Structures are given as C-alpha cells and as structure tokens.
C-alpha cells in the first residue's frame, strides 16, 4: 500500500508534509501505526476516521507536541521532533474544540498568541485587525470571548492562524458542533485559505463536509491509514465506482442501452421501469440520451455523487473492526 502512495506522492510537487512510518505508542498500544503520507503544497488534505483513530495524535506529532515513538515526519522541511519551534512558527493549529481565555477580548486573545509568535507590537495590531476582518469578527473584536458562540470561536481560531501567516493550517474537527450556517461560513474560509496557497490539513469525522473541500483524504482506521486518495479514487476503490445513477423511464431495452454507456459498471433493474447503475463519472447526460434513443419517456434521472459516507459505511461494513473505538 505504501508503495502505491509513494508513487502517487512522487507525481506531486513539493510535499510540505511527509510522514514515513510515523508511529505513536502508549505502552504496547499503537495509536498511530507506521503511517506514510505526503501532502502537497496548496492542497486541502482530509484526515478521516472515527474518534480515536489516531488523527489528533498524528497532528500533535507533526507539531512536536507529543513524542514520536518511531518513524519520522517532516513539516516544511523541518523535523518537529528536533525543531518544533521552526515548525510551529510556520504552521497554524486549530485544535478540536478550541478554547480561549474567556475573560479576555478577541483582540487580547489574539494579541497574546501573537506575542508568543514573537511579533512586534505594530505588526501585531495590524495583522490582528486584518485577520479579524477576514473572519468577520471585527465588530466583536473588543468583546469578551465568553460571549462568543462556538462558530465565532472557531473563526477566532482561524484568525489566529491568519495572524501567524501560516503556510500550513491544521484544523482538528473544525466544524463539529457548528450549526449548518456556521459550517458553511467556515468551509468558505477554508476555501479562501486554499485560494491563498495555504496548505490545509483537516481532520474530521463529518464526512460530507470534508468531501466538499478536500482535495484528498486519508482514511484512518485503528491507527493506520486504510485508504488515501481523492474521494472519487476512493469510491472506485471501495465501491467499485464512484457515481450511482438512477433512471426511471420506460422504453425497450433501456437496461441494455444504459449498460452500453462507456464508464458504466453494472446496471441493476430495480423494477420494470427503474434502473440503478454505477459509473466512474456522472453519466446522466448519456443516460438521457440512451432513453431518448430507446424512444422511452424519462421520468426521473438522479445521480448520487461518490460519497465518503458511502465509502466509509461500505468500508467499515466490509471490514468490521472492534478495536478502533477502544483505542481512544
């Protein structure tokens, strides 16, 4: 498996994060077990998996916040085990359920972090104002964080990363606990970061959200990366195909015609006039054409895009694992 990932990594330019046999053990239990991955510059990379699969531990190892038991990881060319300060100077981290000093205002919280970053006073206030504007918290800048909602806190955390002008943003479960509107806003901010060329490492168990922003994902399971690749690649790998198209139409030989569309896998006849087919791309246009060609009447045409959820469900269904959750 690693061979294959290395190959795919080799095709990408300038890996900003490269893990090689990265391992974390507590006693005899391996929480992270010899994982390998490369993250390219500018990429949004998702770390997926159930709670306790080793995502956060992997992140902490990348930041030098926990000891690496074996293997190594390089972040922007630095070894976090030896040069944690260099790494942390360039990498922003938004922890899972980030906390702030409630008795301080947003600006004060950011100022403290900025001081720890070693920024001079003038630079500090300039960057803080800019960052708060970016995350749309400028109007509450002088309010105490105690009054902030969960979404505001997450955005404030993001502002901290912006103040740092991090080359890599590591976001741990950034959208958990957010309402849908806040989630959408937050995901927009992530896209903005990506647009600026920031490499984003995202850990989540909210698969649909990750799916929306991630270029690639790594699927954690019991301390190992079970799968890695783009969502489409994974869906092919797990489900055999990425897209599921359902066609409801009458006409002769529709099933046959549908099966003849290039890229379509098997076609399942659910009823006389209902078919479900799998494809490695969105084949709705071809399906419509096929119905028309059969002189049929198209009543409904729907597509299920490759869903991590589906991949996830399918994967964990296929290979049930008891130890994953217990590893936490």
């Amino acid at each position, binding site marked *: 498996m690693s061979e294959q990932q290395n190959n795919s990594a080799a095709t990408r330019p300038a890996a900003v994060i490269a893990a090689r046999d990265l391992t974390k053990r507590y006693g005899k239990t391996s929480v992270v077990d010899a994982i390998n991955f490369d993250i390219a510059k500018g990429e949004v990379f998702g770390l997926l998996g159930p709670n306790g699969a080793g995502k956060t531990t992997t992140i902490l190892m990348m930041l*030098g*916040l926990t*000891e690496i038991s074996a293997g190594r990881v390089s972040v922007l060319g630095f070894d976090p085990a030896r040069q*944690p300060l260099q790494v942390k100077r360039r990498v922003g981290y938004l922890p899972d359920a980030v906390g702030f000093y409630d008795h301080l205002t947003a600006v004060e919280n950011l100022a403290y972090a900025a001081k720890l970053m070693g920024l001079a006073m003038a630079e500090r206030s300039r960057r803080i104002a800019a960052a708060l504007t970016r995350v749309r918290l400028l109007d509450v800048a002088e309010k105490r964080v105690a009054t902030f909602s969960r979404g505001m806190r997450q955005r404030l955390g993001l502002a901290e990363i912006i103040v740092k002008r991090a080359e890599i943003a590591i976001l741990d479960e950034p959208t958990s606990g957010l309402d849908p509107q806040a989630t959408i806003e937050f995901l927009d901010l992530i896209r903005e970061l990506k647009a600026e060329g920031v490499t984003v490492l995202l850990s989540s168990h909210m698969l649909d959200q990750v799916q929306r922003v991630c270029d690639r994902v790594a699927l954690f399971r019991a301390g190992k990366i079970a799968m890695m690749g783009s969502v489409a690649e994974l869906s092919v790998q797990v489900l055999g195909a990425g897209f599921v198209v359902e066609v409801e139409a009458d006409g002769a030989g529709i099933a046959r015609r549908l099966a003849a569309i290039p890229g379509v896998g098997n076609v399942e006849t659910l009823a006389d006039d209902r078919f479900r087919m799998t494809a490695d791309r969105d084949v709705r246009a071809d399906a419509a054409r096929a119905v028309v060609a059969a002189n049929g009447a198209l009543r409904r045409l729907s597509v299920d895009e490759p869903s991590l959820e589906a991949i996830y469900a399918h994967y964990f269904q296929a290979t049930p694992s008891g130890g994953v959750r217990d590893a936490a």
Partner: protein
Amino acid sequence: MRALDVARLVATFGLAVPLAISSVHAAEPPHDIKGLYMMTDYPAVTVRPGTTSNISLRLQNYDLGPQRYKLSVEGVPSGWTATLLGGGQPVAAAMPAPDSSVPLQLRLDVPANASLAEQTLTVKAEGQGSEATLPIVVALAKELPAKLTVSSKLPELRGSPKSNFEYTLTIKNDSGRNLVASFAAAAPQNFETSFTEAYGTQELSSIPIDAGQSKDIKLKVRPPSAIDAGHFPVKVTVNAEDASAQTEVALDVAGQPQLQLSGRDGLLSARAVAAQQSTIPVVVTNSGTAPADNIELAATAPSGWKVTFQPAKIERLVPGKDTEVQALVTPSDKSLAGDYQLAMRATSRGETASSQFRVTVSTSTVWGMAGAGVIGVALLLMLGAVARFGRR
C-alpha cells in the same frame, strides 16, 4: 615578782635620766657671771582675777658653793596667796648645786575681787653672803589671750600613692580656758585631706579642748593616685579665737606600678568564630610610677573556651610604657552566635588590672556553605530535569 622588780628598776632609771641631763647642763662652758640669780622667762605676767596662775622660776647658782637659800615672796597684796612650789610641793628653801639651777613655781591665787592695779611681787632667796631677788610685775586683766600648740608625733610618713597617710596630731590648749580649736590642712593640689577623731571615723573640723588639756586628732591625707614619687609637705593650721598654731607634716610618696589592660586602641570588643582560634590584641599599660615585674596574664572565659596568651608573661614594664600581648581565643564549638563576656587579667605582685572583653562569636560558615550546597543540589536536580524533560 621578777617583772615587778624590773618595773621598779626602770622607774628608778627613769628618774635618774633627768638628773643625768641636769649634770650635763652643769658642764656648760664657764661663765663670766658668778653669783646667785632668781630667774624667770617672763618677769611681767598677766593673770585673771579669780584664777590660779603658775609662774615658772629658776634659782640659778653660778659658781657658788652649795648652800641653803631661804625663799620668800614679798609685796603680796592682801587677799592674794603666793606660794612657792618646788617639785609640786610648797617649799621654803632651795639648794642649787654649783652651776646648776633649781626649778621653782610661784603659784598665785588671785582673788576674784582683786583690784585691777598692777602689783609687784618680789621673790627673794637669801643665803649666807648671797641673795637673789626677782621682782615680778603682775598685771591683772579680765581675759588672757588664748594659746595653742600643735605637734605631730610622726610628722613624716612614707607610702605608695595608693596608701592612706595618717598623722596623729596633738593639740594642746596652753591657755587658761577651754577652747574650741578648728583645724585646716594646706596640701598640694588634688590631695585629699580629712580630720577624724583619734579613734574613730567621724570627720571633724573642730574640737573642744579644755584649758591646759591636749587632744589627739588624726589627719588623713590621700594623694592623687596618679602622683609621681616625691616629698609633699602638708601644713596644718589650728585656730582658736585669736590663737593659732602651725605644724608641718610630710608625705614621702614612693613609686608604684599601676597596670591597665585594654584592647588595642582601647577596644574592648572582639570577634571570634566558634571553634576557631582568633587573636585579640591586648595592650598592658603601666600607668604607675614604678616598673612592674613579672606580669602574668590570665582570663576567665565561658565554659569550653580556650584562652592563652602570647607571650604568657611580661618580664618588666617600665612606667609610662605599654606592651601588646596577643590573646589567642578559641570559643567552644558549641558557642552560640552573639556576644560573650571574657574577663582578662594582668597581675604583677599585688597589682592587678582586669578588663571585660565582649567577644562577638560568629558561627562557622561551614553550615552556610552546606546550605548553599543543598540549594545547589536542588538546582542541579532542576537542570537534570530540564535536560531530561525540557523543551517539549
């Protein structure tokens, strides 16, 4: 029995001695004068009516053979009684040896109501072929001037500046009535003088003396202790009414060593460290007037302390000089920090000087170092922890 005999013998000799002296007087160089003379020192006297006066007379025989002279007094006013006394008894005749004299006394009892006119009494001695007469003019006066004498049995005493010089003075009232004699002593500056009773401590400034009596008083003189050796006269003056008498006593002050002990520059405090020998410089000074020999040094120290002197003995210290001695003091190892009393003494025969030194004991800094060591170990522990667990 035998003792009594001896006493008698002495008494006999005692009587014999004045006789021997008289015979010596008799052997005076020959005079040109020859004959018998009735003599007195004061042929004109003043007496007080109602009193009895004695007038000393002498019947002098110059170069005549011994013979009996009948004695008589003529011109005695009525009411007066004139008695010639010899050897304390009324006599009627005298017999002076050649070139010798017989003392006589004329006792005059003057009645109180006698008229104050001057009287002339004539004392006559009649022998065969020679006679002597002496007119004595007796003036009568209500009062007689007072008369005092003062003398000292031991007018010159020798001693050290620290001794008490005590002189016994005898004051005699030679006048015919009771007097109160007051006395004063003129001594060199800074000498302390005081008069006391002969057998008592009560200080006096005056004393009553009955007529014709004498009294002993004591004069104490204390020279200043810092005085040099020398001879110091003290003039004693006794006054009573218009009479005064003077005598002189003298102090012969011999030199004496006087020791003083102090720290260098007069410091009486010193520092020492517990269980460690420290040196305290001690200066011994002889401020006396004679050299001090064999000065020994000793100390009274708190228990457990060791004090020795370097040198332990000073051979000789002349007056006005000082010498430094090192006291080697080792406080007990159990001494507490703080002040202790340390008495040091210098002794030379009877002369002793001592000083209390206050020694401030410091405890050893060894434990302080050990404490710093403990802190050092704790800091090392911290460094070890930082090296092992630091920078995460």
